């Protein structure tokens, strides 16, 4: 019962924060709503018995990624939305279509749940313990894990190369 109350409160916060992110006119507020949304998600992970994921959610997304977002927004002074460009022409129809697909999927899941077809067993006690996750990550899924890390490294080097070449041209033109 207490868990259900907590879930409802957190879910409402997450939804309101998500809507706030969409409708905020100021980029700083939008970023902060996203942070609030991520914190609410972390609490949801906690109620699902996955404390490790909850903490990673806060550290990586709320802590590292969003601080950098905020940093860039403040550094560029790009807080307010410029009206002149407007949304891209094909953006709205596509968004509508994808939203519809998502709604149908969610409705299907809820329908299966309600008819009792998807009787999902509760996960075992230490299902999301750090050691269990480590086993999965470093033994069973070692290859995808390493590929992902190489991919991230390549992206980082690419970013550095792009900045580096820009610097060189600007110094040679002087």
């Amino acid at each position, binding site marked *: 019962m*207490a868990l259900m109350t907590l879930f409802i409160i957190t879910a409402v916060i997450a939804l309101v924060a998500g809507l706030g992110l969409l409708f905020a006119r100021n980029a*700083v507020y939008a970023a*902060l709503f996203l*942070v609030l949304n991520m*914190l609410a998600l*972390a609490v949801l992970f906690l109620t699902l018995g996955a*404390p*490790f994921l909850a*903490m*990673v959610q*806060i*550290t990586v997304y*709320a*802590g*590292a990624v969003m*601080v*950098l977002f*905020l*940093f860039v927004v*403040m*550094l560029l002074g790009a807080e307010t939305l410029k009206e002149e460009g407007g949304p891209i022409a094909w953006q709205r129809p596509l968004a509508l279509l994808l939203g519809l697909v998502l709604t149908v999927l969610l409705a299907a899941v809820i329908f299966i749940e309600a008819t009792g077809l998807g009787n999902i067993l509760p996960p075992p006690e230490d299902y999301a*313990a*750090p050691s269990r996750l480590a086993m999965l990550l470093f033994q069973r899924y070692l290859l995808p894990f390493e590929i992902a890390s190489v991919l991230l490294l390549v992206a980082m080097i690419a970013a550095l190369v792009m900045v580096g070449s820009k610097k060189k041209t600007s110094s040679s033109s002087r």
Partner: protein
Amino acid sequence: MDWTLWLEWTIKAALLLFILLTGFAYTTLLERKVVAWMQTRIGPNRAGPWGLLQPLADGIKLIFKEEFIPAHADKVLFILAPVVTMVPALIIMAVVPWGREVVLFGRRVTLYLADVNVGILYIMAIASISVYGVVLAGWASNNKYSLLGGLRASAQMISYELALGLAFLPPIMLAGSLSLRDIVEAQRSMWYVVYQPLAAFIFLITSVAEVNRAPFDIPEAEQELTAGYHTEYSGMKFALFFMAEYTKMIAVSAIFASLYLGGYLGPFESQFPWLGPLYLAAKIFLGLFFMIWLRATFPRFRYDQLMALGWKNLFPLALLNVVVTAGVLALVG
């Protein structure tokens, strides 16, 4: 769930908050006294014996000061920022154990608030969101000095968090657990500062940078940035920033003590569990004294020096230390 358990948790949480806030008040006095002695001055000595009522007088003064909000500030965030700074500083101590357990009124009471199996990750998560208050304060003030201070603070905290996170790893590897209680208990035979002097050293440096204390206090370098992110703040809102800084000092000292100095362990602690909190308090005092000593000794780093130290020296060293520790552990078993 048992209602007495809820009561116990509530009382312990309230007690922890009370201790932290009182500790904050007297850390300010300690800092003024110690710095004064190091500079052959006397320090505050008018309010009460040895100036012991000075924090109270400061508090009353700050409450009665005018709360000023600049005309073009973002009012919501301007008011929210000090709160966002203060909350992480208070809740980060929840996973630090103060002792094992004692019998109180015929009831076994554990001397820690929460023993979660991801305790260290909790600390890192809270530390990573503690930068928001400072950044928001800088942006909401609508003042170039504040904004620069806020940006510097976020850059500094992100940079030093990496080395700090790597300095968390060796105790985790040695103890084989993410719970602070297990890590403290694993140090019964020997403190980890003996096995891991380099990691302890890196932890000390990066944690000072993480709480923005001298010599890493460039977010509020007064010669260049007036007062940095809290230039526009006055009264209790300013006091909250002050409070957060000193509460974080206490928290960092407590975490350092638990990771490397054996936490609540000490002689005769196994017979008299009440000694645990006293030992931890003594170790926290050592940490606080060290930070004050640093402030009285070193000049402030320049911004590029700070970044070079963090990224080019501390980060590779911490990484190397982790690799060597892992290798030795794998060889020894």
